[in-house]
């Protein structure tokens, strides 16, 4: 067990998987120097062929990844920011996600698109969006969003080994966060959530940077005698709905906390699933805590008014009590 930063965990996962499997390679803008440091230093070990600095051509690079994936390689495409995925949307949705199905199972596209997601560091409107619901709505993509460095390592290794296209979203605000990372081949299977805190009164489902906020809210609420269970699905698609439903069956109350927007956001999906499948257990209407439905403003004061806060989570829990 060693304490490491989120980006160090990403780098360890990449290096270990590239050593393990010679078909794994990395490409993207400035992956050699590594803007977020997660890819820094890999070039020294793996060279030009497997650590490829590309032109700033998100669409072309995203699609080239698909071509490489369906012909036997396992590309990791680093597109830097979640918002840059918009430039690559056609290739990710229409080729990466669709290839296997529309060609009747002839192909597989083992590719990982790696980006920073969400806000919290005053990066402004074009670099601070929680883009995950867009990809949750795309059939046959897997969508992963770790909430800490240890999961980041384990989930990235799982994503690289997965034979399907995976969108791997690292919460932007967690880049410098630290966690104890288990030694060795630390692997976290896709699609499995984790109960981060046990509680009998309310179930919170939260992902990415919202997990820590929900845990802080749970501590505050515990002082008032409200015991909150916090679940981190870790993978947003396919997600561990059994874990959440089982928890709601015990608590009878549900709050969904997600940084993305309320309409068709992750919180909406979770709340809808709970309402549909665990209605008979519910003692109150499920509540959502979502990002405000505006663009991401720059000023730290404005940005924190847009991103769900600990206070908002506390208030939502009190509404279901």
């Amino acid at each position: 067990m060693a304490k490491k930063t989120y980006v160090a965990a990403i780098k360890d996962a990449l290096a270990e998987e590239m050593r393990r499997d010679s078909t794994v390679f990395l490409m993207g803008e400035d992956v050699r120097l590594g803007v977020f440091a997660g890819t820094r230093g890999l070039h020294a070990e793996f060279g030009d062929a497997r650590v490829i600095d590309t032109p700033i051509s998100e669409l072309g690079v995203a699609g080239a990844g698909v071509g490489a994936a369906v012909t036997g390689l396992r590309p990791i495409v680093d597109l830097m920011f979640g918002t840059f995925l918009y430039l690559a949307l056609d290739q990710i949705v229409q080729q990466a996600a669709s290839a296997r199905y529309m060609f009747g199972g002839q192909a597989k596209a083992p590719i990982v698109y790696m980006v920073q997601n969400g806000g919290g560091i005053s990066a402004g409107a074009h670099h601070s969006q929680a883009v995950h619901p867009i990809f949750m709505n795309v059939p046959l993509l897997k969508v992963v969003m770790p909430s800490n460095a240890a999961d980041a390592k384990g989930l990235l290794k799982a994503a690289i080994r997965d034979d399907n296209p995976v969108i791997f979203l690292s919460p932007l605000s967690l880049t410098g966060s630290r966690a104890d990372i288990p030694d060795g081949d630390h692997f976290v299977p896709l699609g499995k959530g984790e109960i981060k805190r046990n509680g009998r009164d309310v179930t919170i489902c939260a992902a990415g940077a919202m997990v820590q906020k929900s845990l802080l809210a749970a501590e505050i609420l515990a002082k008032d005698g409200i015991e909150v269970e916090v679940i981190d699905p870790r993978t947003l698609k396919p997600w561990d709905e059994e874990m959440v439903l089982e928890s709601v069956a015990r608590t009878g109350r549900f709050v969904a906390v997600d940084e993305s927007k309320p309409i068709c956001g992750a919180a909406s999906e979770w709340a809808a699933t709970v309402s549909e499948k665990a209605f008979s257990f519910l003692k109150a209407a499920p509540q959502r805590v979502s990002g405000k439905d505006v663009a991401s403003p720059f000023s730290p004061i404005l940005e924190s008014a847009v991103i769900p806060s600990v206070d908002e989570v506390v208030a939502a829990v009190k509404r279901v009590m």
Partner: protein
Amino acid sequence: MEKILDIYTRMLRIRRFEEQVGVLFSQGQLPGFVHLYVGEEAVGAGVCATLRNDDYIVSTHRGHGHVIAKGGDFNRMMAELFGKATGYCKGKGGSMHIADFSIGMLGACGIVGGGIPMAVGAGLSAKLRGTDQVSVSFFGDGASNEGSFHESVNLAAVQNLPVLFVCENNQYGEFTPMEKVTGVRDIALRAQGYGIPGVIVDGTDALAVYEVAQTAVARARAGEGPTLIEAKTHRKGGHAEGEKAFLAGGVYRSAEELAQMQAKDPIVLLHKRMLEMGVATPNDLEELDQTITQAVVESVAFARRSPDPKPESIYEDMWV
């Protein structure tokens, strides 16, 4: 000599298959819609005749010809067009998504310019795996105005990838004449912007196409990088079959233009040339035609007698 007959055979296979598809479509026997490759056969056939089975191609919405040129199977193609379980994609792809990975045909593509990045990726893959495979991207003049084209050519150029960018310039993007929406008269000029060779060839002359493709393939295999080939050609039919119905009488091509195009039919031209060169006798070519026509007829019978896909198969071929 053998190669010429090979190219002609590929072209005639395309022509006869497409003619049958046109008839079936007009009779309302096919779901969806189809874009036929009639008139452009010399391009796909000329290029694919230079390729090995393990070379890659990525195609377009007008993709039947590329599948056939690369060695695709009539039965599985026709069954796919009928939406049957025995089709190449088990009925999940249809006309614009036929693929045959066993012959390096990595799929047609319904989005204009959408297949180009994939072809570059297949070329990158060949380079990283250390093989001498090449990858061909077929696309139209319209696609050369898409960002995906420019990003892909540049990426292939800077990475020095074994890729052929084959622009089938049929003069129209859907119903709009190319010159109205394109800043250059020759798409091949765009190669200069990315520092790679750009070659113009008469896309109705199969042997000329074969020759320029051979040079480009040799360059690619030798690690000398990509080439942009612009084949000037014509589509004999419309953008899509049955377009008259939705154009409601609107006309976009003059009778004169259509007559000129008729005189440049690539199959008629090659047929004539083969007889002149003594590559084949009229009798040989007639027999070839009959064999191909018979195979097309059989493919329709195969498709008709094939089972429909089961509704529950919508949940098959999802995640690996």
